[in-house]
Structure formats: C-alpha cells, structure tokens
C-alpha cells in the first residue's frame, strides 16, 4: 500500500507519459501553425495574382482615402452605438413582455395572446428593409401630430419592432424549456402564477437563453447600419458620402472593418456566456 505522500509524486512511468502527451500537444500546435501559414499564403497568392488585383487594390484598399474618411465614419459609428444601446434595452423589454403575454394561460387572455402571436408572425416575416421603409416614410406621411420625422428615431423604431419579435421567441423558448416539475414545486409552495413566473421561471429561462440573445444582438449591431437608408448619417451613410466624393470604395471597407471590431467583443461575450451556462449545469 502506498503512503499519501508517495502517491503525490509521479512515478517515472507517469512522467514519461506526461512528456509524451506534451510532445503530442506541441506537435499538434506545430501542425496547426504550419497549416495556417500555408493556407494564408495560398489565399494571398490567389488574390494578388488575379488579373484585376491592381485595380481592386486601388479602389478598395487605398490607405490614404481610408485614413481620411476615418473621422467622419467614426462620428457616424458613434450614432450607431447610441442607437444600438437604446434599441437593445427597448427590445429586451418589449420582447420579454411579448413572450410573457404569449405564455399567459386562461381564456380571458385570448385576445392579448392572439395579438402577440400575430405581432410576432408579422414582424418575423417582414424583411427589415421593408419595415424600415414603411415606418420611416409611411409614419411621417400620415401627418399625425406628435409623430417625429427624425430618421434616427424612426429607424430605431423599425429595428425595435422587428428584433423584439425575434427576441420574444427566444424568451418563449426559454420559458417553455423550464421543466413542468419546477412549476409544480412553486405552485405547491403556494406561489401564484405571476410569482412563479417572476421568481422561478424567468430567472432560469433568461440564464438559459443568454447565449441566443447575445447572438441576436450581434446581428442587431450590424443591422443598425441599415438606418442609413432613411437618411440618418451613421457610419454606413458617412462612408457612402465619402465614396461619392472620392470615387473610391475604400470608405466602405473601413466602415465594414469598424463594424466587425464592434461585433468581435460581443461574439466573445456570447461564447463566454454559453460556456458559463454549460459549466453551471455541469456539462463541462
């Protein structure tokens, strides 16, 4: 029988196996590195060797024009960011409300349930660009008092309308994924339906759907650029103005890269949230 202290020191055999595993790991890393370099080289060669490359480089990757367009695009991006934050908050509230309404039970609530279902069907089905046109040009066209004709507000409204329909469905899936036994347990403790929802179901559901929600928000981030079709001077519109004055497409590339840089942290956040949810439930 081995003593505890001896068990902690590795035997020569285990040392050798550990070394073998490490050398395999190093080998895998090496292979990954070589394969990446080769792949990148092939890609680079295929692009730069194409006959039209010099012209494409001149009209899409002109450093000077890109650099000159940066301040205007950044200013536009600041607008996108503000729209994003406000829309995200409104979408969460509206989406959660819609989801809650759709899960209401009892015949009294039928009209509300039907309304919410119709809303979700309508706005999930409509292409975002059409909603933007209808809201952006149609609403002010009614000439009702109190309806703004600010393209940023109207564009934001269209985004909220469409995205809350998607987010509502994500929430609803989360609510329905909470096991019925949880409802039984809460009900048997004397909680009513609203208390059960608020204290038992929604906390579990929102934890479960965080990764899916973050995924929707990454999509929202880039779709914020679509408010430019209503004339709001956001990053995309700013780039368009630069393109029109310089006859060069580089500002679009700059705006695109900025949107990607905006999306990357959210994507990592989504990964992290997914991982954490999995770890908590003991899957990892």
């Amino acid at each position, binding site marked *: 029988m081995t003593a505890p202290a001896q068990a902690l020191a*590795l035997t020569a*055999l285990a040392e050798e196996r550990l070394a073998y595993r490490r050398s395999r790991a190093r080998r895998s890393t090496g292979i990954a590195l070589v394969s990446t370099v080769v792949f990148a080289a092939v890609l680079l060669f295929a692009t730069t060797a194409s006959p039209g490359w010099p012209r494409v480089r001149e009209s899409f990757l002109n450093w000077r024009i890109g650099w000159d367009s940066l301040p205007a695009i950044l200013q536009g991006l600041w607008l996108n960011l503000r729209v994003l934050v406000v829309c995200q908050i409104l979408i969460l509230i509206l989406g959660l409300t819609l989801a809650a309404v759709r899960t209401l039970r009892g015949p009294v609530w039928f009209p509300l349930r039907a309304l919410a279902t119709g809303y979700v069907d309508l706005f999930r089905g409509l292409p975002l660009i059409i909603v933007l046109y209808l809201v952006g040009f149609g609403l002010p066209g009614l000439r009702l008092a109190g309806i703004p004709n600010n393209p940023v507000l109207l564009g934001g409204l269209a985004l909220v309308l469409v995205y809350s329909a998607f987010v509502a469905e994500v929430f609803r899936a989360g609510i329905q994924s909470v096991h019925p036994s949880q409802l039984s347990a809460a009900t048997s403790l004397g909680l009513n339906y609203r208390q059960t929802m608020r204290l038992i179901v929604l906390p579990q559901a929102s934890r479960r759907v965080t990764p899916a929600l973050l995924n929707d928000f990454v999509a929202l981030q880039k779709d914020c650029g679509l408010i430019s079709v209503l004339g709001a001077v956001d990053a995309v519109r700013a780039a368009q103005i630069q393109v029109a004055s310089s006859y060069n497409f580089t500002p679009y590339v700059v705006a695109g890269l900025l949107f990607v840089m905006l999306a990357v942290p959210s994507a990592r956040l989504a990964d992290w949230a997914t991982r954490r949810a999995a770890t908590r439930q003991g899957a990892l």
Partner: protein
Amino acid sequence: MKEDPGSAPVLSVRGLVKRYGERVVLGGVDLDVAEHEVVVLIGASGSGKSTLLKCVDLLEDIDDGQIVLDGRDISDPRVDAEESRRSMGMVFQQFNLFPHMSVLQNVTLSPRVVFRRNRSEADERGRELLARVGLAEKADAYPDKLSGGQQQRVAIARALAYDPRLLLLDEITSALDPELVGEVLDLVRELAESGRTIVMATHEMGFAREVAHTVCFLDGGRIIESGGAEQVLTDPRHERTQQFLRRVHSRP
C-alpha cells in the same frame, strides 16, 4: 489482494492515481480481476468507487499508474482508447439511455455504428438480448415510457450488445425504487452465473455477499481491505471497514 493463480487476469490495475485539481480522488489503487470473476467495490460515497470504474473505462484521464486489460496497457497514451473501450461495457447509475431512440435502437447502436454489423443481424441480436433481460415486448418503446428497473435492464442489454470482455456496473441500483432493485440484481446474478467478468460498485451488501467472489473496501481513494466476500463482509480486519459495515447495517 486475492489472486486467482491459474489464469492471467482480465484486468489489472496498478498504482492508479487520479486527481481533480489538488484533490486526490484515487491515491494508488491496485486491483486484479480474473476471468469469470465478480469483484464488488464497496465504500462510502466519495470513496472513489465510481471514479475507479470511470478510469478503467478510460472515461477519465489518469494521473499515474497503469490499467492493463488482457495483458495490454490501455492507459498508455499511445494506445487507441476507442479501441480499448470496445472490450468493456459500462452501466451507469442514471441509466443514460438515449431518449430519442427506441429501446431496440439503443441496444443496437454500438453494434451497428461502431462494429459495422448490418441492420438485420444487429436487430436480431438486439431482440435476443432484450428477450434475455425480459423486455422483448418493449423493443419498439421509447425509454421514457419504461420504469426505472426496465430502463436499467435495457442499459445492461446495451452494454452487452457487443459482448465485452469486462462489464463495469456503477451503482446501477442506487437510482431505483426499492421494489425495482430486485429485477436488476436478478439479471446481474444471472450474468455472473453465466461467467461474465464483472466489476461492480454497489451499496447492496446482501447481494455482494451472495454473488461476489471478491469484495474490495475503498476509503479515501484507496482499497484498504479486500478478500473473499464472506471474510470482508462478516469478519473485516480493518477498523475502517468495521465502522463502515456497522453504519450500513444499523440502517433501519
């Protein structure tokens, strides 16, 4: 360790160490299992019984020591773990049947996907096995429609479907209602009598006494006493074993 001199052991564990971070779960375990032998692991929760079975089935990487199956060191990282696992069958405490597959599909999954048997052959053998565990009429049902005892019998049939050299049973009756324990243990008894080589972690002391050739008592991640079932269970030498058995027997 009780050695069975005539034959080479099917399984031989040497100096097995398993850690989770700083915590030593198995602190140097030695265990030999001869062909047709039934070895029962007893011990309190957290003593390392389950971890030992998982390490043997290569479901966990081990930190030190060797696991030798039929003379081949399967804990060597150069040995194909997937191939080694094909010689072992494991049954879990929580059944772990696949809920989206019928009972027959559960049983024939490995023969068809891993061993490339054709469908009719695998189905025929699957139905035979289900008949043997007394569930022939449930072949096309889904696991959720079955009682716990029935599910566990399906899980045993699934583990036997590719005729493994060694059967590992991890507290397979712990999640069952008392009146369902009997049907599962009866099946294990039959398997033991037909000469299966079995390593089994259990809390069923009466069953262990009746069926086991060897009983090992684990405490704090090591086997501190092992021997014939009668000897360990009625006349344990080690003080910790005596304490454990007193606690178990004093339960109402």
